[in-house]
């Protein structure tokens, strides 16, 4: 039993959940406004490369994270430009941005670093023990000795939930994804809202991409996102487009990932590649249940055309 609820395991779980939470919330904001962004994986890759390269050149974690955020915003706005102004198929554009991001991340790294025998590394975000709480038995280790971005991700969940239900802007954003025409009728600019949602979502997705090199590996490698962008899209569906439930989904996926690390340490009988498959197989199993009763925002993926007849 201790194998599955070990405090170190649960601590790792939250550490690995943070990028899924950040990217998941970013995607959630976009989807609630009606924008379907399937390019998350590529956006995170570009953000990861930008963050790592900036970190290497400036040595500042803040500047590195900020660069990644800017990269995330830029790519999300590119998607929004096609989705909002040009009314393109969001699926097609999103997939193109996925490919663009995958290639661009690798290209940026090669152009700046070149071909080296030694992989350059940087220091990573230190863990930040919360005074008074870090000493608690069990929970102290799990919750209160994390890095700053984990705390940020966890705090963003209630903040975003509150934003959606308590503020007028949150209501409008949700309306843009449910019934943009009604919103337009009362004089709210649907396009501006969607661009805004893209910028906010892109910022969080960029931060999620930066998280991996800055907080976990201290290095960049192609394919390091490892499907987390796609998982974050599932997290949104898992969460039924609610931040709180999205957090549950992110934690679930992160648990299987952490468990796989742990199992690799404990057992030598199972080939490591089989363990590495585990999170993806679990994701497929979860998917089977995921769609039952899931109701996306009604205008998700549809361009809003003011002149079109209903």
């Amino acid at each position, binding site marked *: 039993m201790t194998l599955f609820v070990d405090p170190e395991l649960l601590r790792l779980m939250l550490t690995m959940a943070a990028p899924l939470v950040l990217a998941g919330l970013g995607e959630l904001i976009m989807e609630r406004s009606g924008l379907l962004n399937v390019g998350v994986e590529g956006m995170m890759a570009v953000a990861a490369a930008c963050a790592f390269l900036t970190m290497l050149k400036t040595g500042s974690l803040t500047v590195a994270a900020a660069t990644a955020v800017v990269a995330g915003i830029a790519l999300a706005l590119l998607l929004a430009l096609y989705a909002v102004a*040009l009314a393109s198929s969001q699926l097609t554009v999103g997939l*193109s941005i996925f*490919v663009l991001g995958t290639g661009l991340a690798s290209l940026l790294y*090669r152009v700046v670093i070149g071909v080296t025998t030694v992989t350059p590394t940087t220091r990573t975000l230190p863990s930040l023990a919360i005074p008074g709480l870090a000493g608690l038995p069990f929970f102290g280790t799990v919750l209160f000795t994390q890095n700053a971005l984990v705390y940020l991700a966890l705090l963003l969940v209630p903040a975003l939930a509150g934003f959606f239900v308590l503020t007028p802007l949150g209501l409008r954003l949700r309306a843009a994804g449910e019934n943009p025409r009604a919103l337009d009728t009362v004089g709210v600019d649907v396009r501006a809202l969607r661009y805004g949602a893209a910028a906010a979502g892109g910022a969080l997705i960029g931060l999620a991409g930066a998280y991996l090199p800055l907080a976990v590996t201290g290095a960049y490698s192609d394919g390091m996102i490892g499907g987390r962008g796609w998982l974050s899209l599932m997290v949104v569906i898992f969460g039924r487009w609610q931040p709180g439930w999205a957090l549950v989904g992110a934690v679930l996926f992160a648990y299987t990932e952490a468990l796989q690390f742990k199992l690799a340490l404990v057992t030598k009988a199972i080939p490591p590649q089989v363990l*590495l*498959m585990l999170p993806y197989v679990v994701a497929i199993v979860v*998917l089977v249940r995921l769609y039952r009763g899931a109701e996306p925002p009604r205008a998700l993926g549809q361009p809003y055309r003011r002149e079109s007849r209903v």
Partner: protein
Amino acid sequence: MTALARRRLADATKYVVAAAVATVAGALVIALMGGNVLSAYRSFLWSSLGTAGGFAQTLNKMCPLLLGGLAVGMARRAGYFNIGVDGQIYAGAIAATGAALALERATTPALAVLVVAVGVIGGGLFAAIPGALRAWWSVNEIFVTVMLNFVAAFLTEYLTTGPWNDVMAGEAITRLIPDAATLPMLSVRAGSHVGIFIALAMAGVVWLLIERTRWGFEVRALGDNARAARVAGIPTARITFAVLIASGALAGLAGAIEVTALHHRLILGLTPGYGVMAILIAVLGQSQPAGILVVSFAMAVLLVGSDSLQRSIGLPASAALVFQALIVLSVLFVDARRAVRPS
């Protein structure tokens, strides 16, 4: 000008714009890497089209791109996105390699046919998972196919480093398959293999299947309007299942050809993202076999050309992916501009 001629012209403009964007982006990257743009472009074209060896390379690359493009295109005709071509290529390659290694003693040339057939089945079965989940559980095929890409890649890593590993090689590659399981070369000197003819034949088969059969009509009906198709009595679940299996089988064929005609073994990194490029190829080719054929040739030229620039000025292999995506985004841009403001 007639309306049709005007539309043809607009279509042509679109690809010219896209090619121009890619050319300028390419020049930028080359200049950034400190290369001479003009001579780089000359060697780009020369290495992919100018020499027999280069042209053979281009045809060899075109084979998986064309088959992958057909795989994505076929699923798209039914309204689905198969993002798992890379995984299905691996599945086909694994199945083919497994069959060839199991029959290591066989000497009959029919072995190659059998091995390729096993590869096709392998790719089809691997795609049956997203197919069944989509058809009867309405699970989004994009997620399942993406997740299975990772599963297939790890399985390949396991097999190439574990049970099938070539102990003498010291890399993630399997033992060589027997000679009887290999497909013949077209030109031994240039280095091209027969795969391209198989792929071209499949383009014809897919066209016939989609455009000239009852099954193809049902696939198109499903893709055009799923609800109308269901109401009209088309067995949409069964069609969904079948079309995704067929899509996977095409990818599996590509994997089997890479093993039996090119590498003669399973290697990790067998597909450097052919499946991802196949998405773009299908989009650009508008999911039509003829369009996919033309685009996959152009993309093969792009791949082989940038490969030569990798050797001469160190242009990273990933640059090709960026150019391809830029081409698609430019085409989508021109397309959308026309849709928004009809002349």
